[in-house]
């Protein structure tokens, strides 16, 4: 009991510390309720907020539809079916994740804009002028939805795929013995059973969408997030910006709550783990499946990657620059460090929640996982406030006791960066791992506990092996996200410390796209290598454990 109390306390503490930046936001909302300055908000409500809400909602709906349809269908095809190229596709479909959304956005606007090659060629061929023909406007809400869907669907793909692979064959067979054909089995059993995974993946994609600034801004779509920045930068009202962020937070909490509630008490673990045999596709079915999987890969990755490659060729001298390799090292090191840290933390929290599902633990863990929906910059500011306050305290103490000024120990150091990544990306790994844990029957825990294993040993001996797909997925997701992370890095990093993302962004921000090519390409490459290595490692562990004959990628 004593141990449990202590553990509960540490869990809550971890969650609270992680949630500090969110608390700063909550504080500003509370101030608002307590009769703070509402003039900015009033003005915003009267002018732009309705549009922000409309755009944000449409964007979210669109992206949700996009990532679910692409992510789930590719996940199902690559797990349940066998067709030419399936092995390659099953890991290649991860790649769009490594592509920063704004790069994809640049690529497509560059190509499809009025002045771009596609439209110019059309005009040359047919002798059209401006206004003589209709062409979809790339920089628009639908453009943003498309690009974000293409870049973010791997979240859904990865997490859903992991569950599809773990789904028990008997459950699906029960469906078929009740008269369902494979397609109906997918719709009525596999899909609902994968619901936590689909929801998790979609939530992550939507949170990223909500937090996204670069893409929507580039596409001229005014969303809540662009509103937050406009309020801060334009009106110089940081407080007002935080209040808007608070409203965003409330909306996210509400959404998550509704989803949890609608799941009620259903569970998703299945008794037997016999993997289902795959369907061998042939003929036009195989071709259709191939096309369905190749399309998102081509548009989400290959085309933008080609664009990056061509830019990088223009700037090939950079590859010999040692400073450039320093950037690569910084980025990669940070990504690995942060991924490991965040995944460990997520395991600690997710696992605590599973074993001590008291209300307070559940609430605080859920709170800790909200950071992903808040724009990184807002998180960074909240964190900065917290860390500098701590720093000032430390300095004051140190001065009083030792007459020595140690300078800023926490803020403006790598510590601050890692902290920020933890706040922001905890949710990614937490949700991924939770989805995985949900698939493990509680009787597994019990069978191990009864054999004398302590909770942590159970984690190591039972859950980690069974969770390996989820843990690796979480590592990749967080790693790739950290590689791409920009706003928090910009604000919190130390002097003379740059990353690939910062470099790519600074170049792109100045509309110097070819210069943005090499760092962006490097990000993709650096993110890709672990993906491939991990999928190999996964292949091995998988084959011995579940005897799946086929190549199994990362998630499995």
């Amino acid at each position, binding site marked *: 009991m004593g141990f449990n109390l202590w553990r509960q306390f540490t869990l809550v503490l971890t969650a609270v510390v992680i949630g500090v930046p969110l608390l700063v936001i909550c504080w500003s909302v509370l101030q608002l309720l307590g009769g703070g300055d509402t003039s900015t908000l009033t003005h915003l409500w009267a002018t732009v907020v309705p549009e922000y809400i409309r755009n944000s909602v449409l964007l979210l709906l669109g992206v949700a539809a996009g990532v679910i349809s692409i992510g789930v269908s590719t996940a199902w095809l690559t797990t349940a079916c066998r067709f030419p190229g399936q092995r390659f596709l099953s890991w290649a479909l991860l790649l769009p994740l490594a592509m920063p959304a704004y790069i994809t956005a640049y690529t497509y606007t560059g190509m499809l804009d009025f002045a771009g090659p596609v439209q110019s060629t059309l005009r040359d061929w047919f002798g059209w002028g401006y206004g003589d023909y209709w062409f979809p406007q790339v920089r628009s809400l639908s453009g943003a939805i498309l690009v974000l869907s293409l870049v973010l669907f791997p979240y859904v793909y990865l997490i859903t795929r992991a569950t599809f692979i773990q789904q028990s064959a008997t459950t699906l067979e029960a469906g078929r013995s009740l008269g369902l054909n494979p397609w109906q089995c997918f719709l009525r059993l596999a899909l609902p059973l994968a619901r936590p995974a689909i929801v998790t993946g979609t939530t992550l994609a939507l949170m990223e969408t909500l937090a996204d600034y670069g893409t929507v801004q580039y596409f001229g779509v005014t969303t809540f997030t662009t509103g937050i920045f406009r309020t801060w930068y334009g009106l110089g009202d940081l407080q007002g910006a935080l209040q808007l962020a608070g409203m965003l937070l409330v909306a996210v909490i509400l959404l998550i709550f509704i989803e949890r509630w609608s799941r009620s008490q259903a569970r998703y673990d299945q008794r037997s783990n016999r993997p289902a045999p795959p369907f061998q596709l042939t003929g036009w079915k195989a071709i259709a499946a191939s096309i369905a999987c190749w399309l998102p890969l081509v548009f989400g990755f290959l085309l933008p990657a080609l664009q990056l490659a061509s830019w990088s060729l223009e700037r090939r001298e950079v590859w010999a620059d040692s400073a450039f390799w320093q950037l690569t090292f910084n980025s990669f090191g940070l990504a690995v460090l942060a991924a490991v840290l965040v995944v460990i933390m997520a395991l600690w929290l997710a696992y605590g929640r599973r074993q001590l599902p008291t209300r307070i633990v559940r609430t605080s863990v859920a709170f800790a996982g909200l950071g992903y929906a808040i724009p990184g910059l807002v998180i960074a500011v909240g964190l900065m406030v917290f860390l500098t306050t701590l720093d000032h305290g430390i300095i004051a103490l140190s001065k009083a006791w030792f007459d020595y000024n140690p300078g800023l120990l926490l803020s403006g150091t790598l510590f601050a960066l890692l902290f920020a990544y933890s706040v922001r990306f905890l949710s990614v790994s937490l949700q991924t791992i939770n989805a995985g844990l949900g698939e493990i029957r509680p009787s597994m825990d019990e069978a191990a506990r009864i*054999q004398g294993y302590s909770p942590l040993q159970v984690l190591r001996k039972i859950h980690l092996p069974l969770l390996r797909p989820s843990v690796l997925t979480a590592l990749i997701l967080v790693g790739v996200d950290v590689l791409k992370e920009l706003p928090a890095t910009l604000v919190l990093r130390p002097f003379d410390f740059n990353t690939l993302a910062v470099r790519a962004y600074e170049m792109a921000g100045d509309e110097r796209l070819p210069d943005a090519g090499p760092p962006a390409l490097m990000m993709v490459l650096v993110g890709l290598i672990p993906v491939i290595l991990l999928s190999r490692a996964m292949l091995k562990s998988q084959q011995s454990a579940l005897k799946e004959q086929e190549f199994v990628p990362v998630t499995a």
Partner: protein
Amino acid sequence: MSRLQLDKIHISFGAAHIVNGVSLQLEQGEIGCLLGPSGCGKTTLLRAIAGFQSLQVGSISIDNNTVSESNKTVPPEQRGVGMVFQDFALFPHLNVADNISFGMRKASSTERRKRVDELLDRIGLPGYHKRFPHELSGGQQQRIALARALAPKPGLLLLDEPFSSLDAELRERLAVEVRELLKNEGITALLVTHDQQEAFAMADKAGVMYQGELLQWDTPYQLYHQPRHQLVADFIGHGVLLQGTVNTQGSLASPLGMLEHPSLMQVAGGTPVSFLVRPDDIVPDPESRLRGKIKARGFRGAHNLYTVQLSSGIELLTLSPSHEVLDVGADIGLRAEFDHLVVFAADHCELPGFHEQAPTVQPLPSVLPKSQSA
């Protein structure tokens, strides 16, 4: 000193009371057995003993240390308890050998290997070391689950229907082996089973649970021959309860005629009672005056089980060797041959329906026959 002691345990899930005031006790090395209808709370009780389920009221002690109380639950891994789960709960990522040796944490790898080999031999699956759980049949999985629980030689072993997926022959063999093994290694065990033969064969103590209450906790012999509750009488063996009145001469006026039994002497004359009639208490006798019509016949291997309706409408069960086939509808003579006569106060005779609330337990100890031999 008792190895396991349950003291007036109550367990609820929300508003539902699943276990109600159960007390029982097992001495070192004893094997206890829980019987009871599906959903009566047996698994829940075992889970509470293992430490997966917290108690609302009461306490559980192992070796005189309280491990569960209303506000205290010693974690499962600190109780030294082993368990065979009803759904096996094999680890899907480990092969058979690793599953079995999973709990032998301090053993050397030679020891492990030896124990795994020994157990696989005992459960009839030698050479299955490298199989994964999903490559086994249901019964094979169950046996692995059993071996896994036995491997670390726990001080107290909980077995939740450990033989339910096995064929009769293997089940019997294994029950004997497991009993031997438990006795040899001095393991105290609490077993849940639906097979009364098995319970009788294995258990030192047995009990019948009904809707969360433990109606009786006794030796198997007592449970069968001296049930202290009508529900126990009903549940154990195939019993029918009939009504009768004890007269002043100590005989029982019943639908089967006048019955004599030494135990009836202790009952006040004129008391209305119910009494238990088992198939083996009724013998077909062509000469008997007591006659009935065969309503149904069930083939049982050596015997046929006949349901016979007396002219009064009362239905009885009787066994007859299966080569003498009597047809449904035929007339048959019956003779009562009571070795034991189990008698209850009549006002509790109404057997509860399938889903009714648990009746309050009201045994009639004063009416219980003291001497059992006919």
